[in-house]
């Protein structure tokens, strides 16, 4: 019997006055990789933001359960500390705070206990090497002046350091060249184990070639219209979303 990690029940979400999600149901078990695909504006990013309870969105109905906890109305930082991570489509630039200082601070918050500087630096260095990031990036201000690709790698770096139970990757592959996509998928593989899970949000399928995906969900106009295995992605790649309309 697989262990449930995240369960979304009948979720309705608005952005301002606009209805975006219109009853989404989704269950993710430990050890699984899920993908949400869909055309632009279908509500993919809204789903990710709703899980982290971004105050810019309003939940109109439904529930989000992480393991045994109802996280629907928890604050973003509480959800993060319960082990949910989101890689942003457009990571924010925070001037004046270095990647290294920020991640150490954040790691302390997420784990709830102080980590030794030396230990942390080593871990950071290791992960940066794995992602082929230049070491000087750890002393640069968070995302400031990073290229699109560097920002995305920095998100994956944060995922590896914070080691969440559930990693939500919102369009992490968009705007990346082939090499970067390979590095990012390698990052996901390194992170993945039988006790955690990944939810990938994307509108293209490149990244899915190098990952073993368990489920693909097609989100159109705020609803999941079809769920299938990895093959569904290939089908969409061939035929587009027309077939669901």
């Amino acid at each position: 019997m697989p262990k449930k990690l995240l369960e979304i029940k009948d979720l309705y979400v608005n952005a301002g006055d606009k209805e975006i999600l219109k009853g989404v149901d989704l269950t993710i078990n430990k050890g699984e990789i899920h993908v949400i695909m869909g055309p632009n504006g279908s509500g993919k990013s809204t789903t990710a933001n709703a899980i982290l309870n971004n105050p810019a969105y309003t939940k109109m109905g439904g529930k989000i359960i992480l393991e045994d906890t109802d996280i629907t109305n928890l604050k973003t930082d509480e959800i993060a500390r319960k082990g949910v991570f989101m890689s942003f489509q457009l990571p924010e630039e925070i001037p004046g705070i270095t990647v290294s200082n920020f991640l150490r601070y954040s790691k302390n918050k997420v784990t709830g206990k102080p980590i030794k500087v030396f230990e942390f630096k080593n871990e950071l260095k290791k992960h940066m090497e794995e992602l082929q990031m230049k070491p000087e990036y750890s002393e640069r201000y968070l995302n400031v002046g990073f290229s699109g690709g560097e920002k995305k790698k920095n998100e994956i770096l944060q995922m590896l350091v914070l080691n969440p139970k559930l990693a939500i990757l919102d369009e992490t592959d968009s705007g990346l060249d082939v090499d970067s996509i390979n590095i990012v998928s390698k990052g996901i593989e390194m992170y993945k184990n039988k006790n955690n899970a990944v939810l990938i949000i994307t509108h293209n399928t490149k990244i899915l070639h190098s990952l073993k995906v368990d489920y693909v969900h097609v989100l159109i106009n705020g609803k999941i219209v079809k769920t299938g295995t990895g093959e569904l992605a290939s089908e969409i790649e061939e035929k587009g979303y027309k077939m669901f309309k």
Partner: protein
Amino acid sequence: MKTELDEINRNIYDIKNKDDYDFKIKKGLTREIIEEISRQKNDPEWMRDFRLKALETYNKLEMPTWGPDLSELNMDDIATYVRPKTKMTGNWEDVPEDIKNTFDKLGIPEAEKKSLAGVGAQYDSEVVYHSMKNELLAQGVIYTDMETAVREYPDIVQQHFMKCVPVTDHKFVALHGAVWSGGSFVYVPKNVKVEIPLQSYFRLNSPESGQFEHTLIIVDEGASLHFIEGCSAPKYNKVNLHAGCVELYVKDGAYLRYSTIENWSKNMLNLNTKKAIIGKNAQVDWVSGSFGSKISMLYPMSILNGEGARTEYTGISFAGKGQNLDTGFKVVHNSRNTSSLVNSKSISKNGGTATYRALVRINENAKGSKCNVSCESLMLDDISRSDTIPVNDVRTDEVEFSHEAKIGKISDKSIFYLMSRGLSEEDAKAMIVRGFADPISKELPVEYAAEMNNLINLELEGSIG
């Protein structure tokens, strides 16, 4: 969720000593009072005449017609000269216990041991301690209090004293000229590089009084220096006045970095004047952190007189409850190929007012010059105020001038991003504010950066959320 503390705990800065002095001039400003100060200070005749002329100028000049309201300042309530019960010494052990304790708590003797090449400490109107490492002495560097300089280096002082900042500049400079006391004098000979900073610290303890220290620094051709100025005072109910004056002469090819961490108490009117005259291919960098005072009017100025002269200004001000910090930078490009770079930040919260007021003038003779200005203001709530008032006066064609300014609150998106990494809302905001101030604290020596971060934390405590 907002928890507001009326008065944040400024701990060490607020330790009051007994108002115990050797001599305190009676309050007010008359010819007799100026003559008495001059007598008490044993001025040479030229200085006595200088003071009296400055008083005349003071009486003629009008109050500023712009900027913060200074109506609560009444010179009849201010004692302009307070001599502490001690003579100047070069040994901390000789400084009276209560005064020494104050400087101990401010960390001055400790910093001297660790990271400074020389220290001056002023208590009320007189310098109580001055010392410098022997190596610098051997290289011909002079670092002493202003009174000693007037006595021992009369020619060089007379040649430079209030020539860079003439008493006619504005009313409070004239006041300064009349009642100045204390301050530091530095001379760095040609091609001498002073690698470790010198610091002067100014402490005003006496209530209803003023501090009018004069800092005169001459960095001769090809020489370099980093000078740090710190100031603080405990809080009293009535206003205190600070009208210091800083004159910097930086000769051809020389370099000076002038850093200030100003943390006056919140009853202080800080009307300070600082100006640098910069020679050919020379450079002056200003680093300025303004945290304290009730009202500040502070606009350091660089005059780029030599070809290829450069200047940078990096400043931050943090205006909290009851504070009106009107600060900024002035630069005049007066020669070819000069350049200036301005980076100013301000934070206002809890009803404080932060104003960036500035002047850039690029004169007809400054072809090939460049000036870039960037200012950013952060509003932490909707009861505070933030203004940006820059005058840009460009009088020739071959220049590159640009100015950018931004006002706003901390972005919700940034807060969400940091919260998604496990930071609470307060932590996220505090982190963004610290990051905002980082370009400034980075410019300071480690100990002072730590002091500044402390001040920011003190200011933020209980007010963010």
